[in-house]
């Protein structure tokens, strides 16, 4: 852009008016300046900083800081009572110990936390880890697993890759009993033994079992079935164990082994059940129920 022309030569009336006003103002001469004022300029420019103000400034800053600190609300240290330690009560036969870290290790038997305090309890068993605070609970460790009964609050159970929250009033057994495949629970049909006995069939079967041969094998199997029906699982297991040891390759040995496997599993005697399952897989490799046994074994191993 080049220099604009004279403002007053504009064709716009407003411009002309404004230019006239500005020109009138521009014609005003400046008021003379007293040249003596130069001395004031010189003295003002020589004026240096007054260093005496530095300590005064520092003192003012310090006072300000002290005032702020003085006015600052004082935070009182509140004594927080340490959480009351939980009361642990172990049964007479319990095997347990408290580690330096505070973790309680329960190997066998029963241990109960009897006071719901804020103190955190960590209880390790061979099967899981239990964590709780402000809770009352009971833990029992057997060969079959850990039984947890929560009376108040809640308990966190951690196993290999599982975490469960057990609340007051709930009971949990860990590891859980694996589901038993249906084909393994079926009772096999055997040679009729003591079927015609009107009186004590149990006694008849016991007598027959003392014999030898096919009848004795059938009697031992039936004896276990009958004992189980009557609620005597231990006697049933004893009869079948005897059968396996006396007739390991008998006619009914697959049925006897399966019955043992199922009942030991139900009894939560997982170690023995595993042993029976492995033995079955070894000696009954052609059995059509082999796949079900393997599935159950996998569940038990988990």
């Amino acid at each position, binding site marked *: *852009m*080049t*220099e*604009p022309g004279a*403002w007053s030569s504009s064709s*716009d009336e*407003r*411009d002309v*008016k*404004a*230019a006239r*006003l*500005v*020109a*009138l*103002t*521009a*014609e*005003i*001469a*400046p*008021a*003379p*300046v007293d*040249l003596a*004022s*130069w001395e*004031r*300029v*010189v003295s*003002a*420019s020589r004026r240096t900083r007054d260093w005496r103000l530095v300590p005064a400034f520092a003192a003012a800053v310090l006072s300000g800081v002290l005032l702020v600190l003085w006015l600052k609300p004082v935070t009182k240290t509140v004594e927080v009572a340490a959480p009351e330690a939980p009361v642990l009560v172990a049964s007479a036969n319990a095997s347990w110990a408290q580690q330096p870290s505070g973790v309680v290790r329960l190997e066998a038997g029963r241990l109960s936390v009897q006071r719901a305090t804020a103190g955190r309890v960590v209880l390790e068993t061979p099967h899981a880890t239990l964590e709780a605070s402000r809770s009352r609970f009971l833990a029992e460790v057997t060969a079959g697993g850990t039984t947890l009964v929560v009376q108040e609050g809640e308990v966190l159970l951690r196993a290999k890759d599982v975490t469960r929250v057990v609340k007051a009033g709930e009971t949990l057994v860990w590891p859980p009993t694996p589901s038993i495949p249906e084909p393994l629970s079926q009772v096999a049909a055997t040679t009729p033994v003591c079927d015609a006995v009107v009186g004590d069939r149990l006694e008849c079967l016991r007598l027959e079992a003392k014999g030898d041969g096919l009848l004795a094998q059938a009697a031992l199997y039936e004896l276990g079935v009958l004992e189980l029906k009557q609620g005597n699982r231990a006697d049933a297991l004893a009869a079948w164990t005897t059968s396996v040891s006396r007739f390991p390759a008998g006619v009914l040995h697959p049925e006897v082994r399966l019955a043992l496997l199922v009942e030991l599993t139900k009894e939560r005697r997982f170690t023995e059940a595993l042993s029976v399952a492995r033995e079955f897989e070894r000696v009954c490799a052609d059995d059509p129920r082999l796949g079900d046994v393997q599935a159950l074994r996998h569940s038990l191993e988990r």
Partner: protein
Amino acid sequence: MAMESELSPAEAVRRLYVAHAAELRLGAARLAGRDLDPDDLLQEVFMVALRKPADVLTADSPKAWLYGVAVKVAASRRRTAKVRRFFGLDDVAEVASPESPTRTMEQRDASKRVEQVLSKLSDKKREVLVLFELQGLPGEEIAAALQIPLKTVWTRLFHARKEFAAELARLEVIEQRTSGVTEERRHD
């Protein structure tokens, strides 16, 4: 400048003071506004010159250099005054007019109106308009003072004139309305 080089820097600046003080005082007052003390502004401009004598004395146009400082001082004072007004600390003291007492009544009224309109312009336009139209500085010196290209000076001047004229017209309309005097009544 050859003569000035033989003088001490302070004496050279003093001569600039003698030569331009009155004009700069008026210019600084027009840039800063009527409420600020023109003597203070002038003093501050020459204090800067005394601190930097080499800069002012070796400048192509010492006058333009001094006007450049005056522009910055005025802008700074205007900002400070604005803040003080915001906090209610503004105490307007009676200040001596930088204009000649021999001015006519018409010139005085015109000056007041110009000041009123200038206060509505932005700093950049106000600076160029004051320096060119009121202080009579050539474009090259304004460019040197404001440290901007010459073309920018002309562009700003063009827009400043337009805004000034529009603002003046607007003020007159407002005054007519508030005074109750209209063109029609005048005709009556």
